[in-house]
Each structure stands twice: as structure tokens, then as C-alpha cells.
């Protein structure tokens, strides 16, 4: 499951980066920073990314999860701070949905 989620996030980041062209978003790994640190994307790009990933996760797992989170905009605790934390966040959400 984690691999599939990683693939979905990775593909969405690659698509987003076709516009952004950020060097740190090339060759996505679990450590790739997404939001809140020195590097990473702005809040508008984050919203687009999360919306894209949410739709694809729901399609892939025939699920009904909403990737909304109180800490979304927190630089320290955001589940979107890097690819690894985003994967874990989705795994937990899918667990709640099951």
C-alpha cells in the first residue's frame, strides 16, 4: 500500500513540477521536502497537490478519504512536510476509512 501511495504522490509532484521547475522536487524520494521548510512549495501549490493526490488515492483504493488536517499549514507538524510524512498520513487516513 505504501509503495502505491508513494507512486501517486511522486507522480503528482512530478506533474506539479513541470510548471514549478524546482530542483529539489526532481527525483522524488521519501525525504523530498514538500511544504513548510526552507525549500518546498507555496500554499497554493500545496492545495493543488493535495487535491490531486486525494482524488487519485480514492480512485486507486476505492476509498472515501478527505486529506484535510488541522495542522496542514503548520511548518513543524504539517503532514505534508515531506513525502514520507505525507505517505504515513494517507496510510492512517485509509486505516480510519476501512
Amino acid at each position, binding site marked *: 500500500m505504501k509503495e502505491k501511495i508513494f507512486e501517486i504522490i511522486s507522480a503528482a509532484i512530478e506533474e506539479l513540477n513541470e510548471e514549478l521547475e524546482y530542483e529539489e522536487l526532481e527525483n522524488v524520494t521519501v525525504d523530498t521536502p514538500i511544504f513548510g521548510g526552507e525549500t518546498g512549495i507555496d500554499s*497554493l501549490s500545496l492545495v*493543488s497537490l493535495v*487535491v490531486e493526490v*486525494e*482524488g487519485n488515492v480514492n480512485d486507486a483504493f476505492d476509498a*472515501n478519504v*478527505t486529506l484535510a488536517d488541522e495542522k496542514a499549514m503548520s511548518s513543524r507538524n504539517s503532514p505534508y512536510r515531506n513525502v514520507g510524512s505525507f505517505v504515513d498520513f494517507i496510510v492512517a487516513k485509509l486505516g480510519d476509512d476501512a
Partner: protein
Amino acid sequence: MPTMVITGTRKGIGRYLAEHYVAKGYKVVGCSRSPVDFELERYQHYELDVADEKAVGKMVRSVMREHGQIDILLNNAGIASMNHFLLTPLSTVERIFQTNFFGTFLFCREVGKAMAKKKYGRIVNFATVAAPLKLEGEAAYAASKAAVANLTQLIAKELAEFNITVNAVGPTPVATDLIRGVSDDKIDDLINTQSIKRMGEYRDISNVTDFLIQPESDFVTGQVIYLGGVS
């Protein structure tokens, strides 16, 4: 033709709007807690509680799978309850906020995500003249709709970058079940506070929604348009 989602289509203004836009050729997807007793061409119905987060997400995803897009959202579903503030149970306030505010919030969020992906959308929420008129006996209802008006103006800013406009229409009393329990005297008093002193009609509402949802209205957002000259 554009695809439109309208909440609360079982009766009253919602049903009228479903018929109005089906007649104009739109594909209309409606919803209500219980089934509808009408059938329309190009109309599809979902049974759900608009305050049920899971159900709303599921419906929007299902509409997207079938139609590929949602161009327009009319957040019509609403309930009211008339009572003196000092005699209003908290459970009534919760029920009113659930449908009027949480329901509007959830549909704006879920349909907003679908619209953001397509970089196009028109959202019209439903306010009421009871809020600006500070109508006595309508504390819970007016407060829930004041929250809707503020949500409308605020998310209009956040969604502008996605080419989504968010506006609201604020009807005066219209002869529907919503005001069934309100006395004629009370309605007359209310109508006398309007600049134009008559009951609202269904067409008054669709006249405003027609304008707000047209593609040419892409420079109109964050507006709450009250009917009857109330401001």
C-alpha cells in the same frame, strides 16, 4: 451543457431551481435527506444529509466519475426554526448550523476541490434577509446564515486563484415550507421593512442565480445579493 449540483431539491426553492435549470438544458444533480417524488430528464438524485462529511465526499466523487466535472454549485439546502432566543434549545441551534452552515461548508469544500482541478467554477450560497434585518425570533437561523455570508466572502478570496467565483443570494420570505410556521402578521411586518414590499417569488431567486452562474460573471465574486431592497 454544464453540470450543476443543487442541494435540498426535494421541495421549495431547491425543487424549483432543479426544474428551472433542467429546462435550460443543464445536467442537474440534486440531493436531499429523503427521496424525491418527481422525475426530470437529465436530473439525478442522491439521498444524503448535507452535514454528513463522508456522504458528501462520496457523492461529489461519484458525480465527478460520471460527469467528469461540476461547473456550478447551488447550496440551497436549509432549515429554519422560529423561537424566542431565551427559549431556544441548544439542540435546535446545532441542527440548524449542521444543515445551513456545515452543509454549505462541506459542499463548498468538496465541490471546490473538483472545481479547482478544472480551474473553473461558480458557487452560489444561500443567505437570508433575516440576518441583515436582525429579525427577532430567528436568532439561530439568522446567525447560521450570517456565517454562510461570511464564509462566502472569505472563500471567494481563497478560491479566486482557481477561477472559482463564490457569491450568495439572500432571499426575502418566499411561500415555502420554511416559513410555514410563521404568522401572517410577522411576515407582513417583515415585508414592510423591505424597500419593495411584496413576498419573494421563485423567479426572483433564479434571476440572481442566472446572473451569478453565467460565464461572463467571472469578475463578480464575494457578493451577497439581498432581494427586495434589503441591505
